[in-house]
């Protein structure tokens, strides 16, 4: 298609094998955390990935970073399959792919100063000497809106929003091309969320960044994303341009998800008819047969429990609007 792709994920699978037993470590089943997902991210865009807890969003990010090995599939970054390269080559690639985490409390080592935390990437990659590093770190602190004089403070001396800025500064240190953001604002207060989102979007422009933006908050994802993928139980059920997805969702799960989010507008809410999806998210240990969504789907027919629908393009124009549903577009 286009050569603008910076990152492409092809049929990626990650199963966690559960073992039980004392010495024997018998195999006792596997959690299909992600089960054959494919998507791509263009240079300079923000790709949103939404879904409920446990659907495999974080696992996707971790596999892309090769923090854990995939069960199957490929991740192509800049025409390199990152699972095929040696760890030495991967070390170089790591400069270009960075991550920001959800939990501003857990993502910074409590025993390191801010200077050490943000300076660590330089140390690991042997960039500059001590003085140069300090200068760079101070500069980064300024970039993310923190006081460079706080370089010797410890993370607990900062608020959540400020810690998230520290995490962003660390991710920026090596001037990456793409940043995987795993729920970067979920733990923050609304007014602080706005500050971080604004910072991220100005950094994107300034440093020409590409984002994979993972979140469970659809409003936030809509606010930042150019294209969005919706995940359910380890599968991507719909991918489309942001406007298309929010205006004309095709998959019943996307519809349910959108409908479940109350809009901060009382009059609109009074008129709006909501569809509340019933039931709980099933266990990824033994997902439902056929379409994984069928037990909760108001549109489900017999075929849905037998056969698994594949992603198909339903776009009315030249674009791409993929959905994996036999009755895509049918209102729920």
């Amino acid at each position, binding site marked *: 298609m286009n050569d603008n792709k910076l990152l492409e994920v092809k049929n990626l699978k990650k199963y966690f094998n*559960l073992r039980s037993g004392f*010495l024997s*470590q018998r195999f006792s*089943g596997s*959690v299909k955390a992600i089960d054959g997902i494919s998507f791509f991210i263009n240079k300079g865009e923000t790709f949103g990935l939404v879904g409920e*807890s*446990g659907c495999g969003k974080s696992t996707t990010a*971790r596999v892309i*970073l090769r*923090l854990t090995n995939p069960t199957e599939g490929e991740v192509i970054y800049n025409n390199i399959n990152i699972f095929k390269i040696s760890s030495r080559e*991967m*070390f170089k690639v*790591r*400069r270009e*792919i*960075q*991550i920001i*985490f*959800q*939990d*501003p*409390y*857990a*993502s*910074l*080592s*409590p*025993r*390191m100063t801010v200077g050490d935390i943000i300076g*660590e*990437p330089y140390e*690991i*990659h042997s960039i500059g000497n001590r003085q140069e590093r300090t200068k760079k770190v101070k500069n980064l602190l300024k970039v993310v*809106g*923190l*006081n460079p004089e*706080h370089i010797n*403070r*410890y993370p*607990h*001396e*900062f*608020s*959540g*929003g*400020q810690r998230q800025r520290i995490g962003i500064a*660390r991710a920026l240190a*090596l001037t990456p091309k793409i940043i995987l953001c795993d729920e970067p604002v*979920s*733990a*923050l*207060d609304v*007014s*602080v969320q706005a*500050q971080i989102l*604004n*910072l991220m979007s100005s950094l994107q422009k300034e440093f020409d960044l590409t984002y994979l933006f993972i979140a469970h908050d659809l409003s936030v994802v809509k606010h930042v994303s150019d294209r969005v993928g919706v995940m359910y139980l380890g599968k991507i059920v719909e991918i489309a341009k942001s406007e298309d997805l929010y205006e004309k969702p095709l998959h019943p799960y996307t519809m349910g998800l959108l409908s479940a989010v109350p809009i901060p507008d009382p009059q609109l809410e009074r008129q709006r008819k909501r569809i509340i999806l019933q039931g709980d998210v099933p*266990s*990824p*240990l033994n997902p439902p047969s056929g379409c994984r969504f069928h037990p909760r789907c108001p549109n489900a027919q017999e075929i849905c429990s037998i056969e698994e629908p594949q992603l198909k393009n339903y776009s009315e124009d030249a674009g791409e609007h993929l959905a994996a549903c036999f009755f895509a577009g049918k209102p729920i």
Partner: protein
Amino acid sequence: MHGWIQESGLKKKKLMFEKEKESIGITGEIAEDSYLEKKYSRSSLYKDALKRLRRNKLAMLGLAIVIALILIALFAPLLAPYDPIARIKADSSLAPSSVHLFGTDLLGRDIFSRVIYGSRISIEVGIIAVGISVIIGLFLGALSGYFGNIPDTVIMRIADIFFAFPYILGAIAIMTVLGPGVINIFIAIGILGWASFARIFRSSILTIKNKEYIEAARALGASNYRIITKHIFPNAFAPIIVYATMNIGTAIIVEAALSFLGLGVQPPTAAWGKMLAESLDYIDIAPWMMVFPGLAIVITVLGFVLLGDGLRDAFDPKLR
């Protein structure tokens, strides 16, 4: 499996709880410094712990005992009025008096001086033997916790075997094989103690290993060595310090027991356990021979246990 789902839910909940307890937001420009200064008084885990420790009277007593003991051991030659091994025939089996504060033993050695010198062995054994345990324990615990899988299974099963063995029996067995002597005591006690440290360290690592800051370091390309030494060690150290302090007390008792049984320090070196053993036959006629070294052991062990207990509370106030 189910546990996992719950855990991720929990994580989120915890987050929401702790999150932004004191939120400070800033946009673009820089937050007021004076404000920050007021709100977040500079402190860290260790400083906070020290503060709590200071407030704990029993722990401070323990600390005082430990410090006094170390000073006594260091300055033994200055403090002891007599040579601890010089025999003064004429003075044999004297009761405590102003000349011999704690009396003398059968051979006419000054018990006060011997108790003072005896502290050296106890402290040495306590620190060196526990040091050996800590080093072995940290190394194996790190292997086990960080790499998991086969190293973990093997190391933990070996640790189980060590646990199944009564400490003193194990020490006796090793000493019988190695033969008596101070160095061998270090080795025996050191080898026996590692298992607990390995376990404690392993479990700290397991909790820390999945913290996001470790993932962040790995994503930056940090090596295993760097991750273990820079990120895991500093954060997993508090429980080790606590347990090591308490363990010093245990090591001192074991050393005393070994010396008592004649497996440890050899005469004429002054060691509390040995002194107890020598006093055994004369309890009726010269009880001071037993009382003072006995008290020395009890007070020393108490000191370390109180301090260790206090440290534990100081590091984790929620535990109380």
